[in-house]
């Protein structure tokens, strides 16, 4: 019995997601459609059809990288709400490296572009990192505000100096074909970006779990005073974790350019930076769980379009569901088995058994803090 309840509590995030989907179903009903048909179209389209899976993987690439970009600073106790702006700056730097560097072998050029993208995102994160480390200015607000500046910077570049001549819409020239990321599924858009994201997630997992760097980051995040006392520079950890986070977001932008769009577009990111916060949160700060969360959210996003075409429910319902998922999962985290009524009932049953045994043999010594079995009801009455 407690095993089952324990399992239900352990999988509470799954139940929370299901609950969010149930509330989402109400909204689909309000929109005048059949929720089962709508969800059927969404999840079949996202996870069980060849081209749908490819679209899911395409969306998973920026979501995962942006999620890791939020997750890394989170480890050190910092909120990176600026992944969106860092994505734009990364894409800008990568596109410049792709368009303006001399001709060279494709794979070297791809690596250089990736590096440029990381520099772009990292530099953009350096500003809030420096302000936080030096002047203790709230990084939440600075990263938030810098998103708007970053988006407008790319908007300026694509409608000004980098704009392709005669383009009807602000976008840059096309990058050379030798720079296009290889596709991982034939005849689809699914590109290597998602694989790179997964590799980085695994590396991060290893670094967090096994290396002194991961340990010291965790120490700074959980108890900065103690970390400083142990000789770690809190300031340096703040700067590096935010800058590396920015670099990862920059990579997300880079692979949108090299893997999918092949140009730098004005306003190309559909809020991936903000979704990255959700990915990091749903992943509970764990890189591999974050990958699972990114897959789920990417599926919601790619399935949304299929659902809209199939049953006519607007895709905005998916934004609603995503918000609900975060709220429900956040709420579910507050429910712990140890503090639940079920655990209490189970404790009572056990103490009852012990008391019964005690009538046969003398009562065993109770562990510190626990009530002697027989005295429990009286003590509880006294508390009330």
């Amino acid at each position, binding site marked *: 019995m407690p095993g089952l309840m324990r399992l239900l509590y352990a999988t509470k995030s799954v139940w929370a997601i299901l609950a969010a989907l149930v509330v989402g179903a109400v*909204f689909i009903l*309000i*929109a005048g459609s059949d929720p089962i048909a709508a969800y059927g179209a969404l999840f079949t389209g996202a996870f069980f059809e060849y081209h749908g899976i490819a679209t899911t993987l395409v969306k998973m690439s920026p979501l995962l990288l942006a999620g890791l970009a939020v997750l890394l600073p989170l480890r050190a106790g910092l*909120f990176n*709400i600026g992944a969106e702006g860092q994505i734009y700056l990364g894409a800008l730097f990568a596109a410049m490296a792709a368009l303006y560097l001399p001709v060279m072998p494709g794979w070297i050029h791809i690596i250089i572009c990736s590096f440029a993208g990381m520099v772009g995102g990292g530099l953009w994160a350096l500003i809030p990192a420096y*302000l936080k480390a030096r*002047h*203790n*200015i*709230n990084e*939440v*607000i*600075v990263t*938030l*505000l*810098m998103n*708007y*500046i970053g988006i*407008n*910077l790319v*908007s*300026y570049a694509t*409608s*000004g100096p980098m704009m392709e001549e005669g383009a009807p819409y602000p976008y840059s020239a096309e990058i050379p074909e030798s720079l296009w990321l290889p596709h991982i599924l034939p005849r689809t858009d699914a590109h290597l970006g998602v694989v790179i994201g997964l590799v980085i997630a695994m590396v991060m997992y290893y670094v967090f779990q096994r290396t002194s760097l991961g340990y010291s980051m965790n120490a700074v995040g959980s108890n900065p005073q103690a970390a400083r006392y142990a000789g770690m520079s809190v300031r340096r950890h703040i700067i590096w974790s935010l800058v590396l986070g920015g670099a990862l977001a920059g990579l997300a932008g880079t692979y949108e350019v090299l893997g999918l769009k092949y140009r730098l577009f004005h306003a190309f990111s559909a809020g991936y930076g*903000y979704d990255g*916060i*959700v990915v990091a*949160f749903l992943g509970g700060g764990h890189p591999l769980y974050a990958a699972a969360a990114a897959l789920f959210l990417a599926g919601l996003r790619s399935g949304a379009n299929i659902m809209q075409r199939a049953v006519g429910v*607007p895709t*905005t*319902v*998916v*934004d*609603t*569901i*995503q*918000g*609900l998922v*975060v*709220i429900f999962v*956040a*709420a579910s*985290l*507050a429910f712990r088995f140890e503090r639940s009524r079920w655990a209490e009932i189970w404790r009572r049953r056990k103490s009852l058994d012990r008391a019964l045994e005690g009538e046969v043999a003398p009562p065993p010594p109770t562990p510190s803090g626990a009530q002697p079995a027989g005295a429990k009801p009286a003590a509880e009455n006294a508390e009330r």
Partner: protein
Amino acid sequence: MIDILTDPTQLADFLATSLRLSVPIIFAALGGVLSERSGVFNIGLEGMLLAGCFGAAVGAYFFGTPFAGVAVGMFFGLLGALILAYLSITLGVSQIVSGIAINMLMLGLTAFLSRIVFEGQANTMTLSGFKPIAIPLLSQIPVLGPVFFNQDLLVYVMYAMVAGGLWLMYRTRWGLNVRAVGENPRAVDTAGISVVGLRYACVLTSGAIAGLGGCYLVLSQIFLFSEHMSAGKGFIALAAVILGRWNPLGALLACLLFGVFDALQLRLQFANPEVPYQAFVILPYAVSILALVGLVGKPTPPAAVGIPYKREAK
């Protein structure tokens, strides 16, 4: 461009635009001050502002009067705040995560519902709104009179709220309790005052006030609802809260500063078509950051902001 300094009518016009642009942010920032003073960081202001916009449009659309819009708008803002309050105060979930969840939910929900409620005419309708009321005598003051005293009802409500907020915060027992609960909730609890009750009151009120900012946007400026019309104003309000040092009057001045820069960028954009417009659009954001950097001395937030209060925790 220079005419705003030489021509009084141009100057009045410029200042009036500045004020109008800052009003929604002022409401949101007042809500932010209240919430953060009680120890709850409210990054969900953006979503509550947007919920207020939607509510204002719904109220005015179905009842044909802006007053109904205000009532529904404030109520929707309050509903958003209720989510934040429940998650962060009752359940002790991270306030940042709760706030971001509210922003996402409102962004999706208002876009989704507006298509159903307004059936595609969201972008073409003209809702009944508030009209400017000139206050006798005060509106006759040269330059500043028409700027500050020929506005609509919601702006006067905003003045009253700043004054009332100052009085409530610094002159009443309740305000003392609020400030105390943001600094040292345990002390307040020991004094026999409910920490949860105070924080709920502050967060819910903050949502309703942010919703009022949304009402102003819809009922006094644009007269329709469009998707994501809050466009980051709630985030600028967060910067204004810090810049204003968690004080209602300070927040008002900070928001007016942003309003002046926003009005300036509109004028610059109009006067200098050869300069890329993005350079002007980023101006308010850049100024916000620079203002945070350039603060004389260190801003000290309420000590307990961001930390969930648990009675049994040591």
